[in-house]
């Protein structure tokens, strides 16, 4: 099969190639192969392309099945050849890869990008479909690795920037001297950690949107200073108050290290900060001690009033996280009210 490459603008590409989405004709036969446009994806690409620094290094792939040919080289051994395309009956080529990019480019005002086009000529439709499948059957990067890379990269789509801030704080908590969680967070690059990075990121994102970190959201410097400080102080307090359930434990033998406990305790942090104003490890510990004797992190049973649950009966599912959080907050609230009455 002949493969070639050239440079063109979106408007030129639309004259020689089209997007043919998978569908059925009148007889029920399958035609085309592309999936429909993904609006959010296209918008993200367009937002990116509107930035002055934008580049589009990967090519749009176009296939021709007839109505296009390469002329013989002008002189023997010449590297470039002329591609001749017959557009009298409309664009004869198919966009095999890059339809979302191409659509984003087509809707772009003000900037006229030159993009690389990789083309090939094929003899049968079957060959065309095979190439489509092969080209589009790549495996995406593992999410955890993408998250870990995010803090290195500025100027990301908003969808990623919340996660990026959370990843930034997670990284700081895992590697900063004096951090309560130093070395304990399991990341792609720290497989020995015990607390899953995505779990801690969830705690941070919850707090960024609706909790104590809301104060610092949007300011990376402040987050890295005050934000990381606050979380570290809190987990210092957790480690001290629940030492027996923390030291040398793994998620398998303590729900305190497990997603369920970590996320629920994240809400406890927001509660203690919001209601008692706690910021230091001593202030947090004061609040956490109210839970002593009422927890079953690594053995025994939780008494949720309406039901009892074995310590390892709690799973990292939303219902269990809410159940545990409501219980912990209820205990603290009741104790705080009793203290207030006594005072």
């Amino acid at each position: 099969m002949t493969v070639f490459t050239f440079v063109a603008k979106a408007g030129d590409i639309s004259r020689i190639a089209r997007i043919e989405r998978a569908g059925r004709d009148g007889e029920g036969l399958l035609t085309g192969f592309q999936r429909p446009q993904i609006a959010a994806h296209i918008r993200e690409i367009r937002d990116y392309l509107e930035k002055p620094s934008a580049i589009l290094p990967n090519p749009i792939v176009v296939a021709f099945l007839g109505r296009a040919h390469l002329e013989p080289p002008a002189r023997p051994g010449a590297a470039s050849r002329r591609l001749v395309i017959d557009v009298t009956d409309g664009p004869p080529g198919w966009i095999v890869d890059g339809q979302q990019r191409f659509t984003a480019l087509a809707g772009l005002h003000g900037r006229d990008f030159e993009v690389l086009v990789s083309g090939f000529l094929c003899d049968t439709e079957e060959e065309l479909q095979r190439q489509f499948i092969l080209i589009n059957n790549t495996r995406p990067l593992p999410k955890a690795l993408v998250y870990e890379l995010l803090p290195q990269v500025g100027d990301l789509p908003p969808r990623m920037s919340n996660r990026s801030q959370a990843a930034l704080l997670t990284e700081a908590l895992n590697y900063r001297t004096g951090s309560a969680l130093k070395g304990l967070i399991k990341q792609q690059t720290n497989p020995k950690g015990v607390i899953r990075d995505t779990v801690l990121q969830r705690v941070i994102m919850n707090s960024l949107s609706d909790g104590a970190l809301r104060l610092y959201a949007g300011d990376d410097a402040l987050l890295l200073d005050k934000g990381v400080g606050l979380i570290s102080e809190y987990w210092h307090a957790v480690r001290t108050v629940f030492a027996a359930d923390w030291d040398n434990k793994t998620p398998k033998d303590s729900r305190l290290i497990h997603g369920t406990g970590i996320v629920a305790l994240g809400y406890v942090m927001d509660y203690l900060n919001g209601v008692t104003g706690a910021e230091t490890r001593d202030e947090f510990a004061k609040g956490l001690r109210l839970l002593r004797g009422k927890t079953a992190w690594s053995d025994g049973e939780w008494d949720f009033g309406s039901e009892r649950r074995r310590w390892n009966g709690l799973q990292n599912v939303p219902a269990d996280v809410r159940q545990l959080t409501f219980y912990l907050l209820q205990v603290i609230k009741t104790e705080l009210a009793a203290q207030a009455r006594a005072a």
Partner: protein
Amino acid sequence: MRFIFADSLDTIDPGYDFLADRNGAGRTIHRDDQYPHEFLDDAPYDGILVSRGIVGDARHPGKYSEAQLMRFRREGARRFLRYPETRFPGSMMMGDCGAFTYRNLPAPPYSAEDTAEFYADGGFTHGCSPDHLIFDFDEPGADRSITDVPEDVRNRYEITLQNAAEFYHAGSRLGGGFTPMGVIQGWSTASMADAARSLADMGYDYLAIGGTVPLKIDQIRRVLAAMRNALPSRVRLHLLGFGKIEELSALEEFGVTSFDTTSPLLRAFKDAKKNYWMRTPSGDLSYYTAIRIPQATENNKLKQKALEGSLNQEDARLLEDAALKGVRAYAAGGATLEQGLDAVMDYWAALNWDEEVSPSRRADAAAKQRKVYADTLTDRPWEHCGCRVCREAGVEALIFRTSNRNKRRGIHNLHVFHTHLSEFRQP
């Protein structure tokens, strides 16, 4: 008569960009969004109703995210909704359990105790006892006695009364700033009157009438009349989920103190025709139909067609773009009414193309739709309203497309309805 708005996170992004169809730069969900009382110059209601079913709790997720749920319980309703008493003096902050969300369960998932807890955390001024919906309703003269109704109906009736009895005590611990409201459920006017009397005997002096959503206005009138006969005049009445808002006079006549509804907001995008509200000089509500120009790549109907291969998405996008430009050009005076309508109807035709339908029927439907849209565009209603929605969004608020436009139109409707209600009160 006080109008309470039943909220379910009905916010808009004030920085929404209509031309690019996207949120304002750097917008953060909820923090940067605005509730109707924040967006408009004056709050378009006299109080807000928040349901437990919407907020969610330990065992039942609601519409709030988990983090929002925790914040709501921590900070209370007024802070979460940014609806402080200081800025909205005398406003009601009312709670209920959202009986519709658990209508299919044998019993409410909430107890009197944990409901009072929810109201305490939320700092509510008013809260309803945990009720259970009854859907049956007897025609006049065919009242069944309690022994004649199915067991499920009887259970729901008794659970509602039992909960109310327990809730009266649980609620009284919340202090003087809180008014407990007993909820009435029944299958007939007589059973509802009996329930009302029992609730008044328990000590309630503010009752909420539930289960009236499916009732016709004459049934509601009969219920209200029965209430007034059964109750001492000191007892105030609230009508839960009042949808027949054209019939305010019925509420007035029977001395209803308050009612809640989402109708003005929801009809902006759930009603087939009555999307944009106006008040006529003679003091009635009148309506315009919003112009549907859905997003070609996000509309489910169009996506479906693209998946089947019966619609080319690039073509649809061109038609969509032309329709938007046509309406905007007409609004700005750069195109005639017919030009605007042509563009809108070209897209309409692609959107509603159905090969099963005969060409003549298709032409009839198109002509009818064109007339409806012509009425909206000819009168240019967005130029006759001074609310912030119309001032800022203009014709965009009349375009049926994306939640930010549709909810804006709903917020305009709230403004119109609240104005209508306050004028209505003055004879």
